[in-house]
């Protein structure tokens, strides 16, 4: 169970005046401070944890954001930035003594600049809306987190979001040219722009992926790419994950970086096939989807090479998509993996470690062992190209102790990822969820240097406190970790 920082009693005592001061900065409909409507903001996609904030402010422009941040600076008020609230790591979960600044109303695309091959968008524009805005000219924005229909570009910047295509096209950090940032003291600054590379310290580089701890992103400039001429996919079944892993390694050794390379294990295959009927083979232990994109001549050539590699690595089945609808059908199961698992279990808990790919068979075997030990089922989907695992732990929050068991199981998986040379999170962020595991990956001196960076931007530690960096000593001092959050809401409230 993860504890929340102790709320500041002095701030709670001043909640009335603080709300009044906020009300003066934004139109009436942009402030939420009644308990009923605050409930909509008490959690994000890590729904096992929730907490109602002091207030939610929904600014309509960057000037209002800066004014809110300046007020918070004066009042020593904590701020939890929020995009669409799709964080799987609890990055946008409020604190009782904090205000949530929701950026959803900053939802305009400001400029489409084809000559410089970039788009300038306010932070609350959804990831997919950027692609839609440039699709008519055959362009797109490459990073495609699975929540792209809802998640905002500002949130993507905060989390350095990935997606199934980031092996070839990079994460958010590789596709963002600049941001407008409101610093914790209320200054509005521009980092980067329409040019490449920083002329001095790469502040943009450290702000991307900083999970809302260094300031509020209000505007983002992203590069756009021409949509590849064509894309085809292969659906390859294997009798073992070792074979599938060897096939992935051989593909990369052959000089091929596929646009996407996804693996699913038997429980994931069966769950998705029962859900969407994508036509997946059910007699295999591992299923690979390999997508190749580019000019037709290249794609056809590579489909041939990867098919040959699949055969030499003992594939029990191998199908190449012959049409766009068939390609989409191959993906239908993978893309429905989370809801498919949700269908066979009341709750699931999604993990996000990255491992060196060669460790896959060993890590999978260990995860199945843990599954037995914890008495909880697990299904694995996996960005095979870059070693990013998404084990889905199945549990029932209504059964006493199951959430705690699922969390312990998840923590053991992530520790194993670190043990084999990997990391705690590949794309979901540390957030609240993995905060207390940070000392497992980083030594105290490594964290100390990161704290120094934090203090450069936010010396009062008011931006998204309680996220990313452990505050274990505080919990230990309090000695009653469940109660803090319980003052506002039950942190282990069951999901229905």
């Amino acid at each position, binding site marked *: 169970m993860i504890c929340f920082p102790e709320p500041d009693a002095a701030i709670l005592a001043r909640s009335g005046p603080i709300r009044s001061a906020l009300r003066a900065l934004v139109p009436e409909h942009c402030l939420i401070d009644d308990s009923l409507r605050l409930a909509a903001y008490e959690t994000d996609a890590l729904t096992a944890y929730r907490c109602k904030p002091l207030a939610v402010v929904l600014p309509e422009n960057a000037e209002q954001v800066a004014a809110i941040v300046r007020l918070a600076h004066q009042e020593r008020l904590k701020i939890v930035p929020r995009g669409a609230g799709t964080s799987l790591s609890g990055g946008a979960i409020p604190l009782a003594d904090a205000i949530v600044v929701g950026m959803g109303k900053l939802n305009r695309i400001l400029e489409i600049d084809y000559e410089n091959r970039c788009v300038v968008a306010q932070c609350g524009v959804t990831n997919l809306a950027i692609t839609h805005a440039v699709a008519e000219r055959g362009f797109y924005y490459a990073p495609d987190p699975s929540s792209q229909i809802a998640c905002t570009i500002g949130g993507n910047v905060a989390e350095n979001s990935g997606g199934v295509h980031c092996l070839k096209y990079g*994460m958010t950090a590789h596709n963002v040219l600049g941001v407008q940032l409101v610093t914790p003291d209320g200054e509005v600054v521009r980092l980067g722009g329409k040019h490449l590379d920083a*002329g001095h310290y*790469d502040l943009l*580089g450290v702000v991307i992926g900083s999970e809302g701890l260094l300031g509020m992103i209000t505007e983002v400039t992203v590069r756009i790419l021409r949509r590849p001429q064509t894309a085809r996919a292969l659906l390859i079944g294997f009798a073992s994950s070792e074979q599938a892993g060897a096939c992935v390694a051989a593909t*990369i050794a052959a000089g091929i970086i596929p646009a996407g390379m996804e693996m699913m294990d038997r429980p994931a295959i069966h769950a998705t096939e029962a859900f969407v009927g994508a036509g997946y083979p059910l007699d295999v232990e591992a299923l690979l989807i390999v997508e190749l994109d580019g000019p037709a001549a290249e794609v056809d050539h590579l489909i041939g090479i990867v098919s040959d590699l699949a055969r030499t690595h003992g594939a029990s089945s191998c199908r190449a998509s012959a049409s766009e609808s068939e390609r989409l059908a191959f993906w239908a199961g993978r893309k429905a993996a989370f809801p498919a698992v949700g269908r066979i279990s009341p709750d699931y808990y999604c993990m996000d470690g990255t*491992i060196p790919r060669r460790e896959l068979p060993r890590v999978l075997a260990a995860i199945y062992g843990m599954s037995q030990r914890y008495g909880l089922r697990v299904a694995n989907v996996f960005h095979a190209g870059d070693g990013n695992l998404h084990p889905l732990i199945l549990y029932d929050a209504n059964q006493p102790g199951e959430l705690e068991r699922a969390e312990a199981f998840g923590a053991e998986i992530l520790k194993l990822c670190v043990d084999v040379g990997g990391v705690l999170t*590949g794309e*979901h962020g540390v957030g609240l969820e993995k905060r207390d595991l940070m000392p497992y*990956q980083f030594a105290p001196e490594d964290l100390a240097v*990161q704290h120094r960076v934090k203090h450069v931007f936010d010396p009062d530690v008011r931006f998204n406190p309680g996220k990313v960096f452990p505050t274990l000593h505080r919990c230990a001092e309090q000695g009653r970790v469940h109660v803090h959050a319980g003052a506002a809401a039950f942190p282990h409230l069951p999901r229905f």
Partner: protein
Amino acid sequence: MVATFKPRDEADVADIVTRCSSRLELLGGGSKRAIGRRIEADVLDLSGLSGIIDYEPEELVLTAHTATPLDEVQRTLAAAGQRLAFDPPDLAQLLGAQSKPTIGGVLATNLSGSRRVTAGAARDHFLGCRAVTGRGERFKGGGRVVKNVTGYDMPKLLAGSWGTLAVLTEITIRVHPAPEHERTLVIPAAGAAAAVDLMGTALSSACDVSAAAFAPGRGVALRLEGFVPSVDARSSALLELLGGPDHLCLEAEVSRRYWEDSGAVVPLAHRSIVWRLCVPPRDAVRIIDALAPPCYLLDWGGGLIWIGADEVDAERIRGALHGGHATLIKAPESVRAAVPVFQPLPAPLAAISARLKAALDPHGKLNPGRLDA
């Protein structure tokens, strides 16, 4: 009297940084020593921290000690059919240096070559590091896998910090498969405007052009890399898209050498003053018109301008920019002492940068004056 410290390992580096009361000039190979102001300090000679620690081609990851020569890294990668996608340039000839770049120096300066426009910069391939702050603290940042968002991206902060925040001791980088084949199409262009148009069309096409540069008199060069059938199909499609222009085809090794020279800025090596401008690509036309420089090169589709001149003209050059930055990459020592070599920052960013420097190197021990006067 300048003292030279030669650490054997990271512990030595930490020990030297902690104990020494003097300031330190960080030195790997020394190939870029002539960039920035002359540093009045003792020398921290990192050449003892050399060698590849771990290389797993199938994981696309390589870890090396900081002063491992760049060409050793490149030879090792080439033997496994891989390479550094960001195309690090060797500026030794431009700068008149005898020495060779090291991998740590490449990342500390975040200098990337022509492929940067499509493949990303050095910083985008910098997965993890070990380093020693100016306080003498040893730490690690990032990781050793290609996909990682755990904690702040410390490697990106150190990339391009020119050794002023911490001493890099160990580098983990992402590597890429080398292409089976490459071809460069060289197409005549009358001037900067025509060239930027042409490069823009090529980079906005679905032809996967990996680099686009222009040298007045030589024309626009467009680089296509990949599997043979793909390079063939894309070069035909690209030429058709561009209206079937006159062109030269440079194949394989000839193409490779063309880009090596281009990235090394050899055509400007005879000039005493060389500027490097990073700008929005379309701005290149206006900037070249406004400055009418004696000689120049465009790269990154216009996003990178190299200007060779005899006068430094810092205010005029920086005054021509609307966004982006200009670095005085080469000039006589007296000139470098008199003008800001790196573009001065707006006040709020200068304040954040100064706090960052103070946080990691409070006594200003590391590379004093390299980045800021």
